[in-house]
């Protein structure tokens, strides 16, 4: 099937390495959304190395490429920092996690899965429905939170200022001694300055109560080069600390996160692989490279 096309196909037989091999290799990387520039650079590097080591077998090329990709990701630290901070009196505060991203990437779904993941670890999770813009976003989040075993803090009225909902969620989390408070935010395109400022405000307001432990930027694996612009904008306006790459269960490989990670310096932490409540995993560089290369 075309959709599942990867390097696996081209390494099938034991053809000698020729010009076509290199072209196909580059094509496969481009198809994985690594970007033309990065793909050309990777293949050129691989080619130099292969000549130096006199590689004759395509299978060796495959493992070399996997290694090269894993190498690119070697500095990626997927650790989630959810240690509970303490206030001035030494009282434990919840670890606050903001979830941000453009429209339709799967923020709400990710929160449901993440809540489930955390509650299975025995954590007490609170979810703040600060997406007060999109129709029925609060209901959707509540359904997911219920599945994930978390309590929801809803806005008091429709269209309430998202920062105030976030504040209430964290305040409630402190009261209830929650371990983690997850804040859902409305999707926003990174070019909308006013909406990006709103994120900075949410962060500012929340930090009056407790420091923000993580700002998870949700990126859709089907995205192309625009994902890099998204990472940079959400880094600048919301201080994103980790990437969640969703929809990896489809035909898209999400290779743009390599550039996004490199250029914005945000580590990739989690991946979403389906609509089931347990379809959220920690990011694994080797598995990711294997999926890209085959």
């Amino acid at each position, binding site marked *: 099937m075309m959709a599942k*096309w990867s390097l696996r196909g081209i390494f099938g037989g034991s053809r000698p390495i020729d010009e076509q091999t290199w072209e196909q290799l580059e094509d496969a990387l481009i198809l994985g959304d690594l970007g033309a520039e990065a793909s050309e650079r990777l293949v050129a590097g691989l080619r130099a190395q292969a000549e130096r080591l006199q590689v004759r077998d395509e299978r060796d090329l495959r493992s070399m490429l996997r290694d090269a990709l894993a190498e690119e990701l070697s500095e990626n630290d997927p650790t989630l920092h959810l240690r509970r901070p303490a206030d001035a009196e030494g009282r434990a505060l919840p670890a606050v996690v903001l979830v941000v991203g453009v429209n*339709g990437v799967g923020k709400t779904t990710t929160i449901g899965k993440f809540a489930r993941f955390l509650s299975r670890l025995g954590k007490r999770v609170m979810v703040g429905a600060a997406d007060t813009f999109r129709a029925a976003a609060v209901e959707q989040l509540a359904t997911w939170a219920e599945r994930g075993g978390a309590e929801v803090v809803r806005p008091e009225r429709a269209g309430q200022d998202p920062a105030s909902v976030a504040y209430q969620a964290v305040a409630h989390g402190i009261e209830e001694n929650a371990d983690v408070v997850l804040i859902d935010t409305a999707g926003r395109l990174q070019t909308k300055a006013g909406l990006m400022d709103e994120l900075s405000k949410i962060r500012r307001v929340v930090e009056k109560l407790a420091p923000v432990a993580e700002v998870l930027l949700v990126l859709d694996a089907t995205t192309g*080069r625009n994902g890099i612009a998204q990472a940079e904008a959400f880094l600048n306006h919301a201080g994103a600390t980790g990437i969640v790459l969703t929809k990896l269960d489809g035909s898209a490989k999400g290779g743009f996160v390599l550039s996004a990670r490199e250029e914005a310096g945000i580590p990739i932490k989690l991946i979403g692989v389906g609509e089931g409540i347990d379809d959220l995993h920690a990011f694994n560089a080797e598995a990711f490279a294997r999926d890209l290369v085959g």
Partner: protein
Amino acid sequence: MLVGIGYPWSDIVEEEPMPAFSSLSERLTATFAHLRGKGRLTAADIDSTVREIRRALLDADVALEVVKAFTAAIRTRALGKEVSEALNPAQQVVKIVDEELVSVLGGSTRRLHLAKVPPTVILLAGLQGAGKTTLAGKLGRALAAEGHTPLLAACDLQRPDAVTQLRVIGEQAGVPVFAPEPGNGVGDPVRVARDAVVEAGAKQYDVVIVDTAGRLGVDAELMDQAKRIREAVQPDEVLFVIDAMTGQDAAATARAFRDGVGLTGVVLSKLDGDTRGGAALSVVSVTGAPILYASTGEGLDDFEVFHPDRMSRRILDMGDVLSLIEEAQRHFDEEQARAAAEKIAKDQFTLDDFLTQLQQIKGSGALQKMLQMMPGAGQMRQAISQIDDREIARTEAIIQSMTPAERQNAKLINGSRRLRIAKGSGTTVEKVNQLLKRFEDASKMMRKMSHGGMPQVPGMPAIGHGGRKSVRKAAKQKRGRSGNPAKRAAQEARLREQHSGPATGSSFGGSPDLDALKDLPGLGGLFRQD
């Protein structure tokens, strides 16, 4: 009409670093730079040109297979006489690329096919998060505005609270929603779709818009379900909704939907971001289905008919001049504009008139939207988006702090009046000075033009310069468009002679559709930079 008074946007532009080659024309210019004086292109020159085009298209997220076919076609044409004999080969190549892009995207805009016997059934399909539910509301609202009686059918019974979302959107759009099942995994979408069509027949709804669950192309089970919905309702249109930001996967996914559900048309969503939108080209090439609509914002009215020629320029980062003009027209009162133009001609344009115009665009977000469509704005969209109504509000405050006499005759405003105005508006004397200076300059320019002076030829930035300067130069050229309709028509007639292109409106390097410009009240002033 906003006459001749600009805002200090140049500051923002200058601070924003511009990558060396932001658009294809700049890339090609660089590629051709060493060819000056050689007169003729060699095969190697063509190769490097084609490589640049390939890179530009890939950077715009056009699918690789499409890029390959496309560059092959370009190579063939570039080897021909039209390029080798052109005075400016780079410009000629860009023109060819534009023409080819427009021809792939479909030469003209296609309208929705309506059933001869109502109800017309429109099925929406696509990946999760593409924007189907929102689109259902927008499409319903647009059809209702055209006098149709649409019904939205809630067949996404998968995603949590998708049914609720559609209900809310239907309410906002003023379009009824057929939602017999609660969703969240409960109910059979095939039956709901079929019942919706029956309902429409019984209650005289003439269009049924079927919202379906998002599904991956690789999900055989859900693709089969989509096919069963299709067979059950026999839709007149199957619209594939795709996120304009989609990367290489656009080709694979479009193919999966074409084979799985069958498509008659495409809708591009989230086109209001800064993506170049190469996915548009991929989807059309792969499926052969035309793009009918573009979705350009979160509001229910942020929805427009798709224009292939404009998309081509966007993919090439050449700006979207026509959409710009439409956007401008939407926000300017024609009557007032004409009155203002007359006043300029008679040299009676006052700060009061200017204030009226400011108030027209204030609050509409129009300014930002228009600026985002400016040619060459690709790299500065981020900066542009920071210009907002606040800047207008400040100018408004300054003018409102003037006495009626001062507004009628700006020459009255001496030093102490300036200080008073600055205090009254909460700004500084410097800001007041800036505004007055711009107003004075603009008035001078307007006078000159209405008395026969000819400013620079307006239009898209000229090809043949790169880097940061081009943006400023482009903006300066914009200023040259006359505020006087008669004068402007003359300018444009001249321009038409200079850039006579094919009738499809692909006169590259010139304003694409000059008739549309004719009615545009003094857009030039809006883009003035000093």
